[in-house]
């Protein structure tokens, strides 16, 4: 589903991703961990088409499509979704109408009929229950004045409504209390199927108790230096990253 080969990306001449490889197949959940500044969000942004990054080498294909040549909205319509580490506040744009517009753009792209206001409301009410979000937040401008946790839940609500094939969650667990963490994880688990896949970026092993990954990768200085199963996350929790980084350096 997602195939990244030797991806090298720089920002303002500064190399950030330095030859990254990753294969994600339908039905899989991949966790990406790694120290601050190692390039996790950069990877998420490049995959979803944010401007300002220069791809110096390598490739990224999604469902066989050359991802790096597609406009961000086309990636979204093809079923990709990024839950932002820092969701953006958009004053003056109503949360509900924004989400309805987004869903209908995706449905149009798939050749499906657009949902009218009533059907959409039915859908969104159902998904709000899933993430236990207050209805009042639907009437507000997108993320404006939302608490940190409310913003993260809003990301998961959007994911639930848009029902992506490949979702990248960038530190969705950061800033969530234990209950919220369980709710967000519950949301992911309900959406999980044999057809779709998740890439979960996190600093905390705790999340992986709720969202059990098939693979855990460690990203350090722009490269994946180790991949393993969920046991790797436990080991990282105990030992930190230094031993891994040293191990990688001695190999190089």
């Amino acid at each position: 589903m997602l195939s990244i080969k030797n991806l090298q990306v720089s920002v303002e001449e500064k190399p950030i991703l330095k030859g990254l490889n990753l294969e994600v197949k339908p039905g899989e959940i991949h966790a990406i961990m790694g120290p601050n500044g190692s390039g996790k969000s950069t990877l998420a942004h490049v995959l979803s088409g944010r401007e300002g990054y220069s791809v110096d080498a390598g490739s990224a294909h999604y469902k066989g499509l050359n991802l790096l040549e597609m406009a961000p909205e086309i990636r979204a319509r093809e079923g990709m979704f990024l839950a932002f580490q820092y969701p953006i506040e958009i004053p003056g744009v109503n949360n509900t109408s924004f989400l309805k517009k987004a869903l209908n753009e995706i449905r149009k792209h798939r050749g499906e009929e657009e949902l009218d206001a009533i059907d959409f409301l039915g859908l969104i009410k159902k998904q709000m229950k899933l993430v236990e979000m207050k209805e009042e937040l639907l009437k507000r401008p997108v993320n404006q004045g939302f608490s940190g946790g409310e913003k993260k839940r809003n990301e998961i609500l959007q994911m639930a409504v848009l029902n992506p094939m490949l979702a990248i969650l960038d530190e969705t667990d950061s800033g969530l209390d234990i209950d919220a963490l369980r709710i967000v994880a519950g949301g992911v688990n309900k959406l999980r199927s044999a057809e779709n896949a998740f890439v979960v970026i996190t600093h905390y092993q705790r999340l992986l108790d709720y969202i059990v990954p098939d693979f855990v990768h460690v990203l350090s200085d722009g490269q994946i230096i180790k991949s393993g199963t969920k046991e790797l996350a436990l080991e990282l929790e105990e030992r930190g990253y230094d031993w891994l980084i040293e191990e990688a350096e001695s190999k190089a």
Partner: protein
Amino acid sequence: MAHLSNNFSEWVNLQIDNESSFAFSEAVRSPSLSKLAGGVFPTRKDEEWKYTPLGDLLDSSPGRDTAVVFDHEYIESLKQAMPLAHTIVFLNGEYSEEYSDSPTALEDSGLSISPLSQLEGSALKLAEDTILNSTLTDDNIFQHIALGLSQNGLFIEVNKNIECQTPIHVIYISTAHGVTAFTSPVNVIRVSSNSHLKVVEQYASLGEAAVITVPASYIQLDDGAGLNYYKIGVENASTNHICNTSVRVAGSGRFESHQYLLGSNLTRSNLEVSFTGPGAEAILRGVYLGDENQHLDVRTYLDHAYPHCSSDQHFRGILNGHSRGVFNGLVLVREHAQKTDAQQSNKNLLLSRDARVDTKPQLEIFADDVKCAHGATVGELDSDALFYLQSRGIDKKDATLMLTRAFAAEVTQEIDIDSLQTYVQDKVSASLDEIVIPSD
């Protein structure tokens, strides 16, 4: 100011000696006529006019087209902004009985309205006194054109202690074919103590020939009176519109102004508000939206001469193509105006590289116990917000539209007449639909 002879000033001078029936008596007209006789028009060398391109206007020589036909459907469509209002329509400056609601509908309501041309006796005197009491610091020639040459306009008077339920909607439509159409309507609004009223002034134009609109409005609110005053400009691209509005608000009065300048080749709006007693309040809102070579120029002047008054201004500009916006707002807080609260904000969104805006919010404070703040921004759309919308499947054009509409909506949502809010927001959306093409 410099002496410059031009087609327009020559035409103005010819009008002075015309046989036409003017709206006002000599008391109001003569000071203005002597200014006009001087033929003094501002040039780009005048500091206050350095941005305003008057060339097209000064080159033109208006005429009178007696065969002009007005577009019935268009007039009806303008009325839709305010279906529940009492509507008054002027066609090329003349009062239209056909399209206006009958004044008898307002009988015994404590509210009286009349075209200036039908005004006489004490009512005419009251209208003229209101004008003579007013002071415009920007003593520009266009207000003298309005006062000296005006043949018509609207007088609105509300008695004491009246809550006017029905808003007034006055529509000025110019239609020009072959020859330049000129109008200079004058509006006079008097709201007596503790009464409240809403008035919408709408300006529209049609036709391939040039239109010149030079309105002047004089507003006086007595103690505790309130007026919500909306100005909607939707004239076409061959129109030059220069207006002056003078407002006096007595103690505990409340003046609220909403200006939506969405048309015209050139718009210059000068709005001056003076408090004439303590505890008064002024809320000024506005959006100016320009494309191609449009020029939109908004000026405000707020005179805080009494203590415990508050003013709050919020203007937003959206500029595309080669259009140019100007915001020039001066707040004067005089020595005795303690406990003044004056806020002023101007935000501008540039949608193209060639659009530009000159913003100059100014505060002059001579009192020491005041709360004043002002700020101005000029920027592009937030690229993070654009990306966020795109990452959800919304294409760049639609995302740009959504964000631009939202930018305007933060002001337009304050219009407290539902039909008018919808009308203005639809107009903004329609204009944006036409002009927003993403750069890549």
